């Protein structure tokens, strides 16, 4: 049993089982809604943590890829009446393509260039969502996005959608854990430690980083797809710079060095606002304080923090 949990499929399966057990205890649809969002956020931050923790790069445009995924499937299924089975590969293709175009030049550069390029891309995408009114409905958005039907069953309530989202979360975790333990994962760790040494060892550093960046964008596209068919209504407000920064905050607060850090950080920062309702708009100030405090006091993040009565093991 213990050995099974050390494998990536063991961990992914355990995540799925725990999420199902949680569902048995949660009878309040409001909480289920929050956990669906949690799953969607975790899909994005898992990709972002691979990029930040393993490739040592930062993307401030994940919300743009999320938005591109959501708008692509939204527009294709409502305006062109395309079936979801076709819109899904299209939204994956488009996010990956755009990430590829942005990633190739900037990942050859060192340092902060990817951060700024993705930030710029995020703003451009946001402007396009606002201005391309015939397709996107502009600032007021558009609705009536169809629900997902899988094996003849329409995912028409939160319970079904919850299971669907968390199944995908588990798949993403499985895939990501495997990537970390693969040749590419080891190459990433080498790059993160010392880029020059990694290059000397024959690792094509730009290509490996590009690979992870594109993968993370693809994850965000999938998350956008899930968001669109859950909310069934899209407007630009959900895909702005604020959300990109929040995603980076989630990863940094949880711990960049580990996928489960992103999992923890996302959980904390998705659930926390529900308890901060009385702060209204000032939650952004709280995020800033939390992020600053974590960076100053514990730059490695919450993951692996030693709780006195319960030891947390620290293997990835």
């Amino acid at each position, binding site marked *: 049993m213990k050995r099974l949990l050390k494998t990536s499929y063991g961990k992914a399966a355990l995540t799925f089982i725990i999420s199902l057990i949680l569902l048995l205890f949660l009878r309040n649809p409001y909480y289920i809604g929050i956990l669906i969002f949690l799953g969607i956020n975790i899909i994005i931050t898992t990709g972002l943590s691979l990029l930040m923790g393993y490739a040592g790069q930062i993307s401030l445009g994940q919300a743009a890829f999320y938005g591109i995924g959501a708008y692509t499937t939204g527009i294709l299924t409502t305006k062109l009446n395309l079936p979801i089975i076709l819109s899904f590969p299209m939204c994956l293709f488009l996010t990956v393509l755009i990430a590829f175009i942005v990633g190739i030049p900037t990942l050859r550069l060192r340092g902060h260039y990817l951060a700024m390029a993705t930030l710029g891309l995020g703003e451009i995408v946001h402007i396009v969502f606002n201005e391309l009114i015939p397709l996107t409905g502009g600032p007021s958005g558009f609705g009536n996005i169809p629900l997902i039907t899988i094996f003849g069953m329409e995912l028409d309530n939160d319970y079904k959608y919850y299971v669907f989202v968390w199944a995908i979360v588990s798949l993403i975790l499985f895939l990501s854990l495997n990537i970390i333990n693969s040749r590419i994962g080891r190459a990433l760790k080498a790059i993160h430690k010392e880029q020059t040494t990694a290059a000397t060892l024959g690792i094509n550093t730009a290509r490996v980083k590009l690979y992870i960046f594109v993968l993370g964008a693809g994850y965000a596209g999938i998350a956008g797809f899930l968001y669109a068919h859950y909310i069934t209504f899209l407007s630009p407000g959900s895909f702005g710079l604020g959300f990109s920064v929040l995603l980076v905050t989630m990863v940094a607060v949880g711990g960049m060095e580990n996928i489960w850090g992103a999992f923890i950080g996302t959980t904390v920062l998705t659930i926390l606002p529900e308890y901060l309702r009385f702060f209204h708009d000032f939650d952004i100030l709280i995020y800033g304080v939390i992020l*600053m405090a974590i960076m100053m006091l514990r730059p490695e993040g919450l993951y692996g923090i030693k709780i006195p009565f319960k030891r947390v093991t620290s293997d990835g």
Partner: protein
Amino acid sequence: MNLGVQLLQYTLSGITVGSIYAMVAIGFNIIYNSTGIINFAQGEFVMLGGMTAVYLYKTLHLPLFVSGLGAVFIVMCIGILFERFAIQILKDSSVITLIIVTIAASILFKGGAMFIWGKDAYVLPSFSGDEPFHMFGATILPQTLWILGFLFLIVAALTGFFKFTIVGKAMKACAFNRRAARIVGINVNRMVMLSFALSALIGGIAGVIVTPITLAHYDRGALLGLKGFGTAIFGGLGNMGGAVAAGIIVGLLEAYSAGLISSGYKDAVALIILLAVLFFRPGGIFAKKEEQALKTF
């Protein structure tokens, strides 16, 4: 209004906005030169400058001149505090941690501004009235001349500072090689603090002088910072003259596209330039070919 006059009008407004971008870009350059950090909170300094000036003027009823000066001073102090209590402590951390800290600071500044001043936009009166000048049929607001004057003043003062004062030369030495600077007895820590102070100061000035034209709003910093960064990259990161030229070019392109194509996509222009320069000439448009080949980015 015929097309010629219209073009002149766009040119004037482009130069005005471009001057502000140039100031933000100079702020980026100063911190980048002495630390290698891109300060994501740079745009927030501009926002804070405007907001603080409005507060001093409207709430404390100080004279406009004193409010402006006070606001610039306060923003400079914020820059110093930020450096002392965050950057200084983390100076040996990885680049990614330092980026995240400046992002955290920008969230804090923005959140703090919203907390204190709410979500309204505020305006300051122009420094010398709103009576416009007329030139070949185009109108020039007096504030435009103030902005251009300040840009000229900042560039002249910085050039003098880096060329003729011992502290300025010491900062330049840090930019070239921090370790070597330390060996010849330069207090690198102090120079880093000074660079944050200078950069916040310039941001504060930009914020105060632009508020009579574009209003101050808590949410203004991020986009301004991003455009300022695009400008800095365009002119060559760390190159002050380049920043000024690039600022004016970006401002002009933005004004022309807003006037002649569509105002909705105006903000995208600077960002598309940013991406294009990053892709094709990461050393900036003024970098020589050999320089471009030697530098690692």
